């Protein structure tokens, strides 16, 4: 048992490597701390979503509770707590109760392997003197040698909460939402998993700390694996059921999809689960493709700097989540499936083959064939579309009429 715990705990020199009572206590404290950070950031994301969307639509958003409306999540929490907790008669009680928890827990558990900061350890030569070189040592709760697989495994469980919630509600909207969610998440899980394979090939390790160390030594994988990065990012949008892929809860057709029958804190848990999935997704993109807690040597200032860098990068991708949601319209369901199966899956497979070939024969330029070819194809396709539109006399998009002039003329007509 002791062996098991030290394997789990290696790489986090906060309390020492020896498994003692205080070691266990320190680890439990760290877990509690991270859970609370996740919950608070999740609540803040709800506020950020509303403020950013308001900003993008030239509104104000919630700005009354606390400075800039920052305490709005607290007020929302009070409202959720005191709302009546309705359990409809036609539901399957047990599953109905469990589903919100099942959807929140996997999202949080994933965070256990994500390195949130780390330290620089000098490398000592055979004579005991520092060689002047350093290695990055990532800190996380559990340093698994199969970290990437662990994340994919736990991420694949996230679908159960949505599916079971939809089924247990025993209503047609919920069931449709649940069925859509399971089909969508299964489809995009494939692309998500296959997009990570080139990363693992290049680093030749499944440990997240090694992936960060590799990127700190060379370049961010975002630059050497742009196709994998793009597929992973889009697939993570689909996995979190966010716009443009929010078919499982699309308001216009399904009321609220899988959580139509939920109220009070159970609804709040679903809501929080979605935001926790977003945080984990953003943290994963940062870790796998953007160097994690490292930033061109700035992280050498100390582990607090590492936390700050990690937080800043994650915040950027969280902002991108919101940005995309309030910019793009919803896909149709057949478009979603076509994108996942007919485009992402073959491209991800091709990327694996090309990356494997590039590494096996040590030809770096092979890595850039796919991204260059894809960009070229996109440019050519856009050019042909432009020419066809010119030929067909499709009118150009014009600026929306300004409201300023309407007030005077419109009023007289009525």
């Amino acid at each position, binding site marked *: 048992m002791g062996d098991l715990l030290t394997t789990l705990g290696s790489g986090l020199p906060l309390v020492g490597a020896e498994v003692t009572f205080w070691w266990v206590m320190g680890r439990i404290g760290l877990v509690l701390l991270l859970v609370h950070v996740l919950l608070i950031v999740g609540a803040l994301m709800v506020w950020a979503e509303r403020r950013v969307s308001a900003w993008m639509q030239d509104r104000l958003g919630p700005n009354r509770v606390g400075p800039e409306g920052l305490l709005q999540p607290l007020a929302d929490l009070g409202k959720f707590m005191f709302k009546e907790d309705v359990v409809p008669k036609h539901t399957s009680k047990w599953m109905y109760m469990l589903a919100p928890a099942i959807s929140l827990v996997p999202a949080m558990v994933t965070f256990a392997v994500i390195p949130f900061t780390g330290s620089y350890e000098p490398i000592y030569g055979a004579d005991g003197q520092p060689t002047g070189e350093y290695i990055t040592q990532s800190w996380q709760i559990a340093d698994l*040698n*199969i970290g990437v697989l662990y994340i994919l*495994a736990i991420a694949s469980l996230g679908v159960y909460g949505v*599916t079971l919630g939809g089924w247990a509600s025993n209503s047609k909207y919920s069931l449709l939402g649940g069925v859509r969610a*399971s089909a969508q998440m299964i489809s995009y899980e494939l692309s998500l998993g296959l997009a990570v394979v080139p990363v693992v090939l290049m680093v030749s390790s499944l440990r997240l700390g090694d992936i960060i160390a590799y990127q700190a030594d060379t370049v961010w994988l975002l630059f050497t694996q742009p196709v994998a990065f793009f597929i992973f990012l889009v697939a993570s949008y689909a996995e979190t059921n966010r716009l443009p892929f929010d078919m499982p809860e699309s308001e216009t057709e399904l009321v609220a999809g899988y959580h139509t029958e939920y109220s009070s804190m159970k609804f709040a848990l679903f809501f929080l689960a979605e935001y926790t999935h977003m945080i984990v997704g953003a943290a994963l993109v940062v870790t796998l493709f953007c160097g994690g807690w490292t930033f061109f040597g700035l992280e050498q200032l100390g582990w607090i700097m590492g936390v700050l860098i990690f937080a800043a990068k994650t915040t950027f991708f969280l902002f991108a989540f919101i940005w995309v949601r309030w910019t793009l319209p919803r896909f149709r369901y057949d478009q979603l499936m076509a994108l996942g199966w007919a485009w992402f899956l073959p491209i991800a497979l091709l990327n694996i083959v090309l990356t494997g070939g590039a590494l096996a024969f040590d030809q770096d330029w092979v890595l850039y064939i796919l991204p260059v070819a894809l960009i070229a194809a996109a440019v050519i396709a856009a050019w042909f579309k432009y020419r066809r539109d010119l030929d067909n006399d499709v009118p150009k998009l014009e600026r929306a009429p300004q409201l300023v002039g309407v007030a005077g003329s419109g009023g007289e007509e009525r």
Partner: protein
Amino acid sequence: MTTALFYVFGATALAAALLAVTRKNAVASAIWLIVMFFGLAANYVLMEAWFVAVVQVLVYAGAIMVLFLFVIMLLDLRTEVLESTAAPRLPAVGVIAALLFLVGGGIAVHSASLDPGPDPQTGEARQAAALFPDEVATGPEIEGTAENIGGEIFGKWILAFEVTSVLLLGAILGAVILTKRRLT
């Protein structure tokens, strides 16, 4: 401590497996089956076979059971329908399958207890050592890391691996042909 945990997770897996085959509701059965997979995965972790444990969760709990649930929900299976259409000799088939499993498992455990592991002097082990000097040099004790399992599968057991993949390909083709009435 490890032994105690083994019994806890083993008992969980057994109880969940029993519940999975006795529940009337198909969705409840599926849920208990998932719990059973987690019990098994926890036992793999206790044996420090991280890779197998995670793949167990990834493949069975994460992918296959989601598809099961998807189909159950899509068909909206009712117990009465199942009882009227299920084969009448199903219990007998179940007993035979259980007996076959017990005999096969017994043979496997018995031969494993007799097998002292690859002898470094035999040709097989030498060949493996020549192919994968890093992996095999550690001796008969094989840790459940991704590297070791990959080395074993793509080295010593490559033929079995390829035969399995052909079998799966055949199953996929069969499923497509059975479900698609017209292939044009």
